[in-house]
């Protein structure tokens, strides 16, 4: 059975945001935090970041690269990219459904 992000419980949302952050190339921890904050407007705490990173790494969705000056970059694996694409499509489908219903009720 394939890992799905909802299995990560309260870390599912941070995990999804981290995967999106890594989708354009490898980043180290602080770069992920800065990217998430600028992209979503919400801070990602260091404790939450590393709890989600550890889970994503365990499940093979991301992998650590060699550290550079004590900073260790992470990158998306092919499995991680596939899972991310699937999650984003599901979210997109759900958003489309909501917008259609909203359009019917207000139109």
């Amino acid at each position, binding site marked *: 059975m*394939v890992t799905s992000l909802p299995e990560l419980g309260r870390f599912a949302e941070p995990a999804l945001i981290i995967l999106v952050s890594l989708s354009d190339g490898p980043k180290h921890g602080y770069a992920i935090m800065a990217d998430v904050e600028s992209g979503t407007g919400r801070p990602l705490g*260091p404790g939450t970041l590393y*709890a989600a990173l550890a889970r994503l790494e365990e*499940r093979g969705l991301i992998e650590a690269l060699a550290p550079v000056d004590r900073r260790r970059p992470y990158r998306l694996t092919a499995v991680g*990219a596939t899972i991310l*694409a699937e999650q984003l499509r599901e979210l997109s489908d759900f958003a489309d459904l909501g917008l259609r219903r909203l359009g019917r009720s207000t139109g």
Partner: protein
Amino acid sequence: MIEQLVRLYPARWRARYGDEFAVVLEERPLGPFDVADVLLGALDAHLHLRGLGAASEHRKGFTMSLRIGGYAAIVAGLFWLVALVGNAINNGGESGSAVIAISVVFATVTTLIALVGLGAFQARRHPLLIWAAFAVPAFGAVLGLVGFAAMIILGDSDAELVGGMSAWGLSTLGVLTTVFGSALFAIATWLARSLSRGGAALLGIGALLMAPALAGATGAFGPPVISFVLLALAIIAFPVGWMALGVSALRVGRGPAVSMGGAPA
């Protein structure tokens, strides 16, 4: 203070993440939100480490399933290629029938292995379709193997078995059922977009053309040129589709993706 916060985490966690985590904490002044977040993170790490081994095993099992499915799909494609091309060239002759029969048996078995390995990868998205894509060819494989076994044991392909059906007829029905199941799997794969959609399209086209192509080859309908084109398309598309899905599964299971473009199309 940063050192004290890092020390709140378990030793095993610190050995793996401690150094880089300290660097992240050093990057900016820590506010109350950050400290509270780190405290919760440390608590989570103490609770979470208990499941570390199980999660790793889960990942290994998943990757192994995908890899076995990928290799099986490539081997199945090769056996289907030998069986279908051999059958077309042999044109009902006795000389190559043993090689074709053995190829069909191996193709059927490896197709089932591929369906299990690759189906597990996609089962969450289209569970009913994936189950049907396994159950139909599994049923077909049983029919086909019983038919082949009867031909070998009885030494007569025309020997009547059940419901007036000959051993040859039963094995052919089994093969066609396996091919139809492959079409279901191709549709599920196309919808799930987890593996190569090109491979899924080839497999689906090949599988759906197989029955009319074989019927046409026996002169059942249409001008010979149409039958020849259908047969040639089916013979190429079906095995190449399986092989393409196998390669795609190995790529997903093995390599890192530097960007979203690295995901299979």
